[in-house]
């Protein structure tokens, strides 16, 4: 949303809440405490508790769960999550930046259509899109069927339940998240700057590197964050496309709560650590507003 922003703020400075505002404040504070503060506190408490015999947690104070964060398993899964999320981010940016730029620079009518072509997949459930890839990649799926019928292969190739399938799914899921913020920045950019660069003799590569890229910087940074952060915490997609062979940190957490592992304190410690890491990432990257601002488009 491109508001006129604070530019037209009038004479009245924001003041203390009046009677109506105070009435609004109470339920909000109650809400924030009940559904943000308390759950987080519970999670922290849970991480210091003892593992219950039938799942759940027994009161007590133990650092065992936090100690387990140093397990080699955690390191492997964490390393894999960061690697996959990083690869997906790079792939998304490579695909998204030229496309977002082109969409932003096209004529208004066409631009609206192209933008809709990005927004509809963006809003289409990632499960639906993951299932679409399952039907294509599966052993008895579409691609193998086509390859077999064309005589290119003699037996189905294993494509589903491979790391490649997970990466493909990640890129497909998050590509719109990368296009939209870059588009938003590109659209607000003055095309005269780019023309000036080429008029002054810069080649396309140099123009891109020295003019376009720095100007798109904030949009690209937002895009990278919008892909990397959710990709890292992802839980179901790699299950559907990786068949449980490509576990990421989200799977490890879920497994402690609802899966076979049933170790709530360990899962809670992982969750708290993840939350802290994300809080730091968002802090470093500025405010969370960029997410919603790009969603608004």
């Amino acid at each position, binding site marked *: 949303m491109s508001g006129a922003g604070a530019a037209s703020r009038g004479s009245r400075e924001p003041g203390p809440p009046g009677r109506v505002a105070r009435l609004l404040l109470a339920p909000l504070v109650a*809400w924030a405490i009940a559904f943000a503060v308390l759950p987080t506190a519970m999670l922290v408490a849970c991480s210091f508790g003892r593992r219950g015999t039938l799942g759940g947690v027994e009161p007590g104070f133990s650092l065992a769960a936090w100690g387990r964060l140093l397990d080699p398993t955690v390191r492997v899964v964490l390393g894999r999550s960061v690697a996959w999320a990083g690869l997906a981010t790079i792939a998304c940016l490579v695909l998204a930046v030229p496309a977002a730029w082109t969409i932003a620079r096209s004529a208004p009518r066409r631009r609206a259509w192209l933008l809709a072509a990005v927004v509809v997949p963006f809003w289409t459930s990632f499960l639906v899109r993951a299932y679409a890839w399952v039907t294509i990649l599966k052993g008895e799926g579409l691609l193998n069927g086509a390859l077999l019928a064309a005589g290119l292969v003699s037996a189905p190739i294993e494509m589903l339940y491979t790391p490649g399938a997970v990466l493909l799914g990640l890129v497909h899921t998050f590509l719109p998240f990368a296009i939209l913020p870059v588009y938003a920045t590109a659209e607000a950019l003055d095309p005269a700057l780019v023309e000036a660069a080429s008029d002054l003799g810069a080649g396309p590569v140099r123009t891109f590197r020295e003019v376009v890229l720095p100007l798109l910087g904030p949009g690209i940074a937002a895009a990278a964050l919008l892909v990397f952060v959710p990709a890292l915490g992802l839980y179901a997609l790699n299950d559907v496309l990786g068949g449980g062979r490509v576990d990421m940190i989200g799977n490890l957490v879920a497994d402690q709560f609802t899966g076979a592992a049933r170790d709530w304190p360990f899962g809670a410690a992982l969750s708290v650590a993840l939350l802290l890491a994300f809080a730091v990432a968002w802090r470093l990257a500025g405010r969370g507003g960029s997410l919603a601002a790009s969603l608004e488009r």
Partner: protein
Amino acid sequence: MTPFLRRALAAWTALVLLFLWFPIAILVAWSFNDSRLNVLWKGFTLRWYAVAFSDAGLLRSLGNSLWVAAWATLLSVPLGTAAAFLLERHRFRGRDLLETTLLLPMIAPEVVIGTSLLALFVAVGLELGFATVIASHVAFCVPFVLVAVRARVASLDPALEEAALDLGATPAAAFRRVVLPVVAPAIASAALLSFMLSFDELVVTWFTASASSRTLPIEIYGRIRRGLDPGLNAISTVLVAATLAVVALAGLVRRRSGGSR
């Protein structure tokens, strides 16, 4: 820009959009394919739609999803809108802390929201069911409503409201006739956003739902794990069509609101 570069960029964009749409198009087309195995095109049929829409499990979870999304929207829009006005228009002690806390569920990974709410529900002895699912959905919808509505509140010149008050309007009338018309489109699109976020949510629901309050994404997730199912193509196609309709509706709302895209 040279013509070659222009063409290269256009081709790249076409490829990117093709990549985005190819699996969706296949999914939709094959929902009409008269073949159980989903491999090659055998002929046109509507039977998978008949299968999907006579499947009690799917229908119940679809009903659950609509019910949950409606309540989540109904509850998170007033909360988020109130928060938007309070945080944008007033300065008070603990304001920054309240803002951070309210935005927390937007920043936290879904798996953290889900597990922390589960830990809370279990600690206070709340039985998992519709109430816990709806509450957890409101928890992550409120920050999105807050941010969306707040942008519009920020663009509203307080002098307009003051002028109305100076000209003798009651505060309620000034709000209704001056503030609301400007902010309403943002509230409407925030409502759409909440509904879609809630309707699509899998991970948080996974931790906070009981067997009887399973939503459509959880049902679909279970079925995908069991294997190919042409009924899934049909229900997915319906979801894609619904998404198209909602995006078109959102476009209309935005156009009617004028100006701001």
